[in-house]
């Protein structure tokens, strides 16, 4: 197994992370820029996706333990979660339902194919979990990954402004709305 895929991924991501650390804007999102760059390099060098994944696949495998690890930030935030249990339960249940149904039916109404509908339904949860759900539903995990990242960028780009348009002033309402609609990639609103 050649270590080409994993080396390329890590180097490209490192470069874009450094750029992002200096700029901190939504259009320097290092994950999306890395995906585009790696895809171009593979095409340019004529490397099939399968042979890239033979070593880069290890990174995807690490997503499993990474999701399990999310228990630690949840545990450490249990005080806040308990204090706002009612708001969090209602906000995530109602908001999560709207997120899934509105994505699914908008895509369906606009003529989306079955695999697109199943891949777009889980786009409002964090990427690692969305990929798992997409696999379970019979969607295309690669599409889901990109949809989630695009959703996060959308939140980053216009979320805070939109909350102003909707006249939402409450801190918890703003935070939960950003978290439910565009997951963790957003600044504290």
């Amino acid at each position, binding site marked *: 197994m050649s270590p080409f895929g994993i080396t390329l*991924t890590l180097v*490209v*991501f490192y470069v874009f992370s450094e750029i992002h650390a200096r700029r901190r804007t939504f259009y320097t999102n290092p*994950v*999306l820029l*890395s*995906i585009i760059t*790696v*895809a171009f390099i593979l*095409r340019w060098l004529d490397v099939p*996706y399968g042979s*890239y994944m033979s070593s880069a*696949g290890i*990174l995807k495998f*690490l*997503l*499993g333990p*990474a999701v*399990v*690890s999310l*228990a*630690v930030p949840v545990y450490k935030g249990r005080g806040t979660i308990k204090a*706002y249990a009612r*708001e969090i339960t209602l*906000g*995530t249940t*109602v*908001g999560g339902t*709207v*997120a899934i149904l*509105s994505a699914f039916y*908008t*895509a369906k109404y606009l*003529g*989306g194919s079955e695999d*697109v509908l199943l891949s*777009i339904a889980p786009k*409002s949860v964090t990427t690692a*979990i969305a*990929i*798992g759900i997409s*696999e*379970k539903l019979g969607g295309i*995990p*690669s599409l889901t*990954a990109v949809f*989630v990242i*695009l*959703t996060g960028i*959308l*939140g980053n780009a216009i979320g805070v402004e939109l909350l102003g348009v909707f006249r*939402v002033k*409450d*801190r*918890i*309402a703003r935070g939960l*709305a950003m978290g*439910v*609609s*565009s997951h963790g990639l957003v600044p504290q609103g």
Partner: protein
Amino acid sequence: MNLSIPGSVIGMLYLLAALLGGAVKLEWVENEAELFVRNMSVMFIPPGVGIVTYLGLLRVQAVPVFGALVLSFIATLFVTAKTVELTGGSE
């Protein structure tokens, strides 16, 4: 439609229950877990690169995809914020 929960999510719930119940101490897992969480975004790149396999599909489906992403984002943001405000918010 298969609605079962991904194994990793079940694992997360088990670990959370073990931490809350005291069976696992935070110090045993804290550093390792935070290392995983901090570096999670690099793990999205290989599945994301797989999009090259679906460029044709994406081109044909551009309208439903981008329409759904934008509309669903706005609807979810609005409904969640208003739900929380009606529930009481931070007061």
